[in-house]
């Protein structure tokens, strides 16, 4: 089967940052994303996720490599100082390149 290389960008952040991240995704030209509520522990201690506003979310977005770079750069510059956030990329293969 003919697959194409793409990047999966995963962003785990406090749910209050969600609105801002989605805006950024639109600006950088991502075609779609997936968002879910998550809980866990990290630099901020445990995030119990009992109240939605103070919980964490995870956003996953598939984009071409250059968009992924751009996205991480903007996150690093604009949002890392303001919000509790972790972001990383992974190499993935997709079937329909034009979807992303």
């Amino acid at each position, binding site marked *: 089967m003919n697959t194409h290389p793409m990047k999966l960008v995963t962003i785990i952040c406090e749910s209050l940052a969600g609105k801002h991240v989605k805006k950024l995704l639109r600006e950088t030209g991502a075609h779609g994303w997936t968002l879910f509520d998550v809980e866990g522990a990290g630099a901020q201690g445990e995030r119990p996720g009992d*109240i939605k506003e103070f919980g964490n979310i995870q956003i996953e977005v598939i984009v071409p490599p250059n968009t992924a770079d751009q996205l991480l750069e903007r996150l690093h510059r604009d949002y890392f100082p303001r919000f509790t956030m972790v972001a990383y990329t992974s190499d993935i293969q997709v079937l329909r390149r034009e979807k992303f």
Partner: protein
Amino acid sequence: MDFFEAIRTNLLSPAVIFFVLGVLAVVFKSDLKFPEALYVTLTIYLLTAIGFKGGVAISSAGFSVVLIPGLAAMMLGTAIPLWTYPALRYLGKLAPVDAAAIAGHYGSVSAVTFIAATNYLKDIKLPYEDYAAAFLAVMESPAIVVGVLLGKLATRRQGEPLGAAVKTSLHEAMFGRSVFLLVGALVAGALCGKRGMAGVEGFFVTPFQGVLALFLMEMGMVAARRIGDLRKVGPFLLGFGIVGPLLHGFIGAGIGHFAGLSLGGVTLMATLSASASYIAAPAAMRLSLPDASPTLYLTSSLAITFPFNITIGIPIYYAFACWWQS
């Protein structure tokens, strides 16, 4: 009623007992956990119910009756951060942005604390103005905006515009889910009046106490999960989380008295004044004052002030109300 009897009555109400049960569930590491969706559902129910009931009361009392105490409540909410800020800043030696964020929380109000107070008044069979939910609605937002302004003014870098942060906090303060729902339900109740109440009473009034008990059990767990953070806030804030509300409760009772409320109404005004926001304010502060530490403001309002108010605070505010009215 003797003061200790008043506290005992409050502690033995189903709502407070279930709150303690929630705390115990976390302390003993029980696997009891409410789904997040239930938490949201219960909040929506409680806010809609008290808003609607308050709105119906406004329609029968007349808007002009509510106006003076409503304005007094609003001014009180706006003024509290103005003296809380310097106290935190200079007595507590907190960073300006933290002092401002906390000041906003204590000027704003907690709906659940208010509901617990109405519950207590019902328990001791003391009548109160049903339209008091309107005070709750007008006290939630102003302090948040004042807190954000104080924080921005204190930490403003040269040439940085104030507008964006104030706009964000205004939006959050006016259209955050709690204020929006409460104001919406108030308007709905005011439009429907008594006739509308007859139709929804079986849903919004009869099961209310049970829903409140269930919700407070969840709040007990939410508060207890943050007990560990008490170590991080320092002795000053621990003390402030109790002394601040007592002082605000006393002042609030005085304002309620001069605004012409009944003994029950004065108790509610004192409770509102003493309570601190733990949903609307933290969300607004996180977005508008990102440099302020959430551990400080959330722990003091949620893990110190909230439990204090619903257990011992409310009977004390009732005592303050009695003192002013005598």
